[in-house]
């Protein structure tokens, strides 16, 4: 060993009494942590290769395995934590920028967990969602400011294009390339069955998935991968990706090694060539420029599709959103700093951006104050973990939520946070055929449908409890929320009262 040695983060513990040397763990681990010693007829393992994805644990027929966090620690220090020191070692060893995946793991406040929801008692009856109709359907898009009539006095029912969702949730952008074909197929099948939408991300749309177009948001990012007229027309909506919560202000970069076969075809770039999404769209330097991209997309699709502009939640988000609302966009999607990612520089992921709860509250309030809230729908993500988060987001002013990490968990992701390695043992963040086929799209979509159906029931129960039978009546209804353990300033920004008030 040497100065470069870093003690493994996890230890693979095998119960020798239970293990039957069936070698299933060895087959299941693409990181090659397990091996079989032919000579001594025993299973071996290399802890340094384990990323704690729990695949072998889940598949060991004898429950002989567990993965534990190593208790070999450096000398404790509140300022210089284990993690901080190891990161220094990694950089001193390599000279590289630290690269991580999935959302911000730091212990920043999760405001969802400091907000409580109201319920009716005595004065306003609650509603039983099992027996009474409950509307969770939402329509995303521009809403007119007033009732319009035609010349002969009839109601003018012509609305700008709207997206109809059976519940206020969509699967957010994950590109084909960052996740697998089978993961995309699972999302597409589930979105179609659920009457919601999934999002192609910036890697183009695989030809096999054009048939799910009505339930697809097609994304246009700075790299414009796979963007052409048929692609734009294939989706139900077009999303311009300006930023992403996990890496605001940073472009994307899918290494050439991952640009193979169908990925290259779908992105329409040569195999082996890096897919670089520059940090900015080089034709957008102002709200006027954004307006130009919005309208060029509308022109190319004959004004039939709503245009979403997705931005990361950053410091001046309210003013930015106000600009976007005036750019002609139909929907603004805001991604909070806990949003997931297939790969992001660790420092950016952990230190840039702001929580979605504060961003949402600030944006909704600003758009209301300016009288333009109806010009756009608001979709928020990063990170929405449960039906409770959805209900709180709606009450804070969102029209719908974007969900990605929760959807991946439903597909089997165990949040090992090593998507960037391309060796996802659960067949999600990988392009290796033998790993991809571990995820069965029929089963994956069923699990997504289960998850969303359960959330929908829970949303209805929350609504019933509040005596609200339509999600529209919950939107921006901040009286239904109370803060707990929050400062005056936080309450002011969230525009909610403290519990007990």
């Amino acid at each position: 060993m040497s100065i470069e040695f870093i003690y493994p983060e996890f230890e693979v513990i095998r119960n020798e009494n239970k293990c039957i040397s069936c070698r299933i763990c060895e087959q299941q681990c693409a990181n090659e942590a397990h091996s079989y010693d032919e000579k001594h007829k025993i299973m071996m393992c290399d802890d340094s290769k384990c990323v704690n994805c729990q695949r072998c644990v889940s598949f060991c027929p004898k429950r002989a395995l567990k993965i534990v966090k190593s208790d070999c620690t450096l000398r404790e220090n509140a300022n210089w934590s284990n993690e901080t020191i190891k990161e220094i070692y990694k950089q001193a060893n390599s000279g590289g920028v630290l690269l991580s995946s999935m959302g911000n793991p730091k212990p920043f406040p999760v405001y969802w967990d400091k907000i409580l929801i109201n319920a009716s008692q005595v004065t306003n009856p609650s509603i039983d969602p099992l027996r009474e109709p409950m509307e969770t359907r939402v329509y995303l898009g521009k809403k007119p400011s007033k009732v319009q009539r035609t010349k002969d006095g009839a109601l003018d029912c012509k609305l700008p294009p709207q997206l109809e969702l059976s519940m206020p949730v969509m699967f957010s952008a994950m590109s084909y390339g960052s996740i697998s074909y089978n993961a995309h197929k699972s999302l597409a099948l589930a979105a179609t069955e659920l009457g919601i939408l999934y999002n192609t991300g910036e890697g183009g749309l695989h030809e096999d998935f054009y048939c799910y177009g009505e339930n697809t948001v097609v994304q246009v990012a700075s790299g414009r991968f796979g963007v052409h007229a048929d692609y734009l027309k294939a989706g139900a909506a077009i999303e311009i990706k300006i930023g992403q919560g996990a890496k605001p202000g940073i472009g994307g970069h899918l290494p050439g090694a991952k640009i193979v076969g169908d990925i290259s075809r779908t992105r329409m770039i040569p195999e082996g060539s890096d897919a670089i999404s520059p940090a900015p769209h080089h034709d957008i330097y102002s709200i006027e420029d954004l307006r130009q991209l919005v309208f060029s997309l509308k022109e190319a699709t004959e004004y039939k599709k709503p245009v979403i502009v997705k931005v990361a939640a950053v410091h001046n988000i309210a003013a930015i959103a106000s600009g976007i609302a005036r750019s002609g966009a139909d929907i603004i999607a805001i991604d909070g700093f806990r949003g997931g990612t297939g790969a992001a520089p660790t420092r950016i992921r952990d230190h840039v951006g702001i929580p979605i709860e504060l961003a949402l509250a600030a944006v909704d309030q600003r758009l209301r104050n300016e009288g333009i809230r109806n010009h756009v729908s608001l979709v928020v993500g990063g990170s929405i973990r449960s039906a409770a988060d959805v209900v709180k987001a709606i009450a804070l002013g969102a029209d719908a939520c974007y969900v990605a990490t929760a959807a991946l968990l439903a597909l089997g992701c165990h949040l090992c946070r090593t998507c960037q390695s391309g060796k996802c043992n659960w067949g999600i963040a990988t392009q290796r055929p033998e790993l991809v086929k571990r995820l069965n799209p029929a089963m994956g979509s069923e699990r997504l449908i289960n998850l969303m159906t359960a959330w929908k029931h829970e949303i209805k129960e929350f609504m019933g409890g509040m005596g609200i039978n339509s999600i529209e009546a919950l939107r921006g209804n901040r009286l239904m929320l109370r803060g707990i353990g929050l400062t005056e300033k936080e309450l002011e920004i969230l525009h909610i009262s403290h519990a007990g008030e």
Partner: protein
Amino acid sequence: MQTIDVADLDYKAINETLREAGSDFIIEGCCGQKFIAAGMSDKNVTINGIPGNALGAYLNNANITVNANAQDAVGDTMNEGKILIHGNIGDAAGYAMRGGKIYVQGNAGYRAGIHMKAYEEKIPVMIIGGCAGSFLGEYQAGGVIIVLGLHKDNKRIVGNFPCTGMHGGKIFLRGNCENIHFPKQVTARCASEGELDEIREYLSEYCSDFCYSVDELLSEPFTVITPDSKNPYKQMYVAN
């Protein structure tokens, strides 16, 4: 052939007309209307007057001829077809174009050919007759950009920072380019006969479009710039 007088029409109305009937159009009196022919296929459009930004964005397979200057974002994310400009163009022309041709008689502004790509049989080609502004071919991932430097009046053939982040495709600049500073990750050298053969067809087409002589163009040496790697940013990261 249909002639549309667009003096009183906005871009929406122009595109509706183009979409509705026929395939051959002459647009008269164009004055800054944006997005003309965005996403269209199978059209031949001649424009008299100056079209606005994003002319032929997402162009699928149409031919556009402009008998004047054009503005910013010509052929943004173009897929197929041809745009011919008898004048100068503004900034960010051919952003992320993947196929088709943009031939310009005059000069181009900043960021021409930024993030141009190529894919299988699709090789986009941009030829600029005059000079190009700064950031030519930034992030270029494929395709061919040619700058001829005709009538350049002692100006440099490209501005500052050409080829930054280039990781595919080729740029040909007419002349020896000694006064131009290229970034580290590309190689600039005198184009060989073989390399010139690759672009001869495009140059002939350009010359017949704008009445120049190919032989005269090729009488000067060309500098060709290619990236050293398809993966310029590989070494920068360490897994955490």
